[in-house]
């Protein structure tokens, strides 16, 4: 009996001790010593792969491109001029067909638990990386599906004749024709440099598919751990060829639900959150900040021009006239976007301010429908994308607004949505009538809007889901690429925009801003003007009490010296 009483007493005293330790545990500031050197980023989804060559999805680029890899050249500064990266300099011949890159000689690849490099980056790595895309017989070409959507959309294989190795640190690209967007394409997130030595190792082990799952690159971070749907853990690459990153650990907390991301941000469980909701609440808080960048993107409403009734230009014009864009911008984008006049944002140098806008005119829309032979109206589908993107924060709401607008001209709308990968697959098979989607530019060259979105080549294989193909438009794009004269290019693009506004394969709705929220203790730029985010320059402000604890060992060291 006494034993039991003792037990009861000891249990209760133990619990009190446990509760006390728990409570003191959370109030202690010293847990920051690890979190101070790390960043937790609440991301919106799992990447499909760790090789940006293979995907144009923003989530994949965010998780791989600027963290794990480098390109030969990069965009620098406010004016987006090309600058050196893995290539310390480059030279273009007068006819623009031979481009020689001189590589840096001190670039080390990641050393991880699955690969230890024995040599620095050289010409073989550059040739390996691009031949994987170009050469259909390359050992790695078919690995992970053999699809290189970005390079296919810019017709990279048709442009590059061959890549020559001049010496260990010099590579020459020989082009079939002059293309003014070639260098711009090499500066994108997609043109990353992989390790040829790692490829060899995998070939010896016959585990070729690992090249895209367990990545090796030259970037500021290296992959430590990835659990699908849960987290990605990066460690700092200590032998980075530039000054190494300020944080030691970078964790992507994959949280697809936007309310979960907000909760985690407010509860300080993540330092930075992608695509936050409740902008007002975040700006009200003193410990959080909201930032945005006017990205080179466009959210649009596209028509499947191969399916009736949208093969008729008049129907497309009528539907476009009936949509109240301003209402969409006020509701869906909450005013945080610019109304789009055409597919090219006004911030681009090639934008022509004389571009006419179609406007909102339901009466004219109705009469156009009558001319087209649909006086009684018809029923149509709108495919609304299921995910949140900067260019379209809520496609389903947008579809509902369009549904309301179109009802006024007698058109009944059914809204259809699928899970994201199913949605994209069915869209590429052309099962839709109309769809809500968008495009984010990979580099500031205007061609990156015109060619991937609406050219004939990308309607066959690529991202043109309107399946619109116009010879005149394609010729204009070709002319624009063959000249380096900015004014000439601008006039070609202005003509191309005029064709789009006349034919309306798609209705551009808005150019949005990409938002991101972070704790005020996180310093350094993350959002980039185009392409994926970068954590290279990010650091954390140290708290006062921790400076002391950090300073102490240093003084102790000095004393012992």
């Amino acid at each position: 009996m006494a034993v039991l009483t003792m037990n009861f007493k000891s249990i209760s005293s133990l619990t009190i001790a446990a509760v006390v330790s728990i409570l003191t545990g959370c109030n202690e500031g010293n847990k920051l010593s690890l979190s101070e050197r790390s960043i937790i980023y609440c991301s919106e989804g799992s990447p499909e792969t760790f090789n940006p060559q293979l995907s144009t999805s923003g989530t994949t680029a965010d998780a791989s491109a600027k963290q794990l890899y480098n390109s030969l050249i990069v965009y620098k500064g406010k004016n987006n001029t090309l600058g050196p990266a893995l290539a310390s300099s480059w030279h273009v011949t007068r006819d623009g067909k031979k481009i020689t890159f001189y590589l840096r000689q001190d670039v080390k690849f990641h050393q991880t638990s699955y690969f230890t490099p024995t040599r620095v980056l050289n010409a073989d790595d550059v040739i390996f990386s691009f031949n994987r895309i170009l050469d259909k017989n390359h050992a790695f070409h078919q690995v992970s599906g053999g699809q290189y959507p970005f390079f296919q959309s810019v017709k990279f294989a048709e442009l590059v004749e061959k890549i020559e190795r001049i010496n260990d640190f010099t590579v020459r690209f020989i082009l079939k024709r002059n293309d003014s967007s070639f260098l711009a394409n090499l500066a994108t997130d997609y043109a990353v440099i992989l390790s040829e030595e790692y490829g060899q190792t995998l070939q010896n082990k016959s585990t070729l598919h690992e090249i895209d799952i367990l990545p090796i690159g030259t970037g500021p971070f290296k992959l430590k751990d990835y659990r699908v749907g849960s987290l990605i853990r990066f460690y700092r690459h200590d032998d980075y060829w530039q000054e190494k990153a300020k944080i030691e650990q970078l964790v992507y907390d994959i949280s697809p639900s936007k309310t979960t991301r907000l909760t985690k941000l407010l509860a300080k469980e993540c330092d930075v959150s992608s695509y936050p909701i409740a902008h007002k609440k975040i700006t009200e808080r003193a410990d959080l900040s909201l930032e945005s960048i006017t990205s080179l993107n466009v959210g649009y409403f596209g028509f499947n021009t191969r399916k009736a009734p949208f093969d008729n230009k008049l129907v497309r014009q009528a539907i476009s006239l009936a949509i109240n864009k301003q209402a969409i911008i006020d509701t869906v984008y909450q005013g945080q976007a610019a109304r789009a006049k055409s597919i090219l944002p006004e911030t681009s140098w090639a934008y022509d301010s004389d571009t006419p806008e179609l406007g909102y005119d339901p009466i004219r829309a109705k009469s156009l429908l009558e001319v087209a032979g649909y006086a009684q109206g018809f029923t149509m589908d709108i495919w609304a994308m299921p995910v949140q993107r900067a260019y379209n924060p809520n496609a389903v709401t947008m579809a509902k607004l369009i549904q309301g607008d179109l009802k006024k001209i007698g058109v009944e709308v059914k809204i259809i949505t699928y899970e994201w990968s199913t949605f994209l697959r069915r869209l590429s098979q052309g099962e839709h009538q109309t769809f809500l989607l968008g495009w984010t530019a990979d580099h500031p060259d205007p061609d990156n809007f015109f060619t991937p979105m609406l050219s004939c080549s990308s309607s066959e294989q690529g991202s043109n889901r309107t399946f619109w193909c116009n010879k005149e438009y394609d010729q204009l794009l070709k002319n624009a690429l063959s000249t380096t004269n900015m004014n000439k290019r601008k006039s070609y693009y202005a003509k191309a925009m005029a064709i789009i506004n006349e034919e309306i394969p798609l209705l551009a709705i808005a150019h949005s801003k990409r938002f991101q929220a972070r704790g005020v203790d996180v310093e350094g730029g993350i959002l980039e003007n185009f392409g994926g985010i970068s954590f290279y320059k990010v650091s954390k402000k140290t708290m006062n009490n921790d400076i002391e604890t950090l300073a102490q060992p240093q003084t102790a060291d000095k004393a012992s010296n």
Partner: protein
Amino acid sequence: MLTFTLRRLSLFLFTMLVLTLISFSLSFLFPGDTVINHSGQINATATELAQLNEAYQMDKSIFTQYRAYLTHILNGDLGQSMASQSPISNEVIELLPATIELSLVALLIAMLIGIPLGFIAAINHNKASDNAILSLAMLGYSIPVFWLGLLAILFFSIGLGWLPSAGNISLLFEIEFVTGIQFIDILLSDSPYKWQAFSNASAHIVLPACVIALAPATIFIRLSRAAMIEVLAASYIRAARSKGLNFKQIIFRHAIRNALIKIIRHVGLQFANLVTLAMVTEVIFSWPGIGRWLIESISQRDYTAIQSGLLVLSCFIFIIHILTDFIYAALNPLARGNSHGS
């Protein structure tokens, strides 16, 4: 004691038989091909499908099919998840410990709060404190767990910023998987941040465990109150009082011990209730346990996972019941004579 053990064992066997029968028949009731529902191999090629049909004896009578299914389960083959295409047994082994950990902590909290409060109420029977405790218990029992969970996050995580709202540990800490019970794994790990990780994990478990504990705690209050009232009215208490023992001696030496025995057998029953509550709470607090996994499987129409997950969970709860029965019988010799189970 031997007959008692045998009785429980046969009860266990028959219940398991019924459970496997139910999960076996689910494969026929779910949409899609039965053998694919059994195995979860949605991308099987024609030859693989033929092998599966052979392995599950799909061309034989339903009884043979059931026997083949049972053999697979007894060999630890629960099929593979349709969503992730990894073996379900692996996923269960990774996730079940987290749920057990959460439920045990919640059970501990419920007992430590509920039982003493119930005793206090019984000792002050029909007084103001008794009524106050009883009404609090009623209130606590009536609050739906998902709402309480959201309120707790809103108040303690977002409002006050005291406690984290998601997961079982900050993602910064890398704890190697050994037992799956987070606290044990942390103590076993050789991370330099062991104690930071420990206090971080403790902070993470507080909110979900308290949310789960509330409803069982109110039940413990009522159970222990009733048990204590009964004990206090018993003749041996009156005898002790007439012998001149003071109040403290009566309560601590005689009443508590006898009242506790009556409560222990309910702990097992409460555990089942607790696991159900834990499933909902895991979703709210993004706790990486089997409950969240099962609910996600339901929303993803992952039939193999639903079927096997239900089997594993119910089997687990049943084992807990039997264990508490044994503990009860060991503590209380009177119960061993009870011939028809609890």
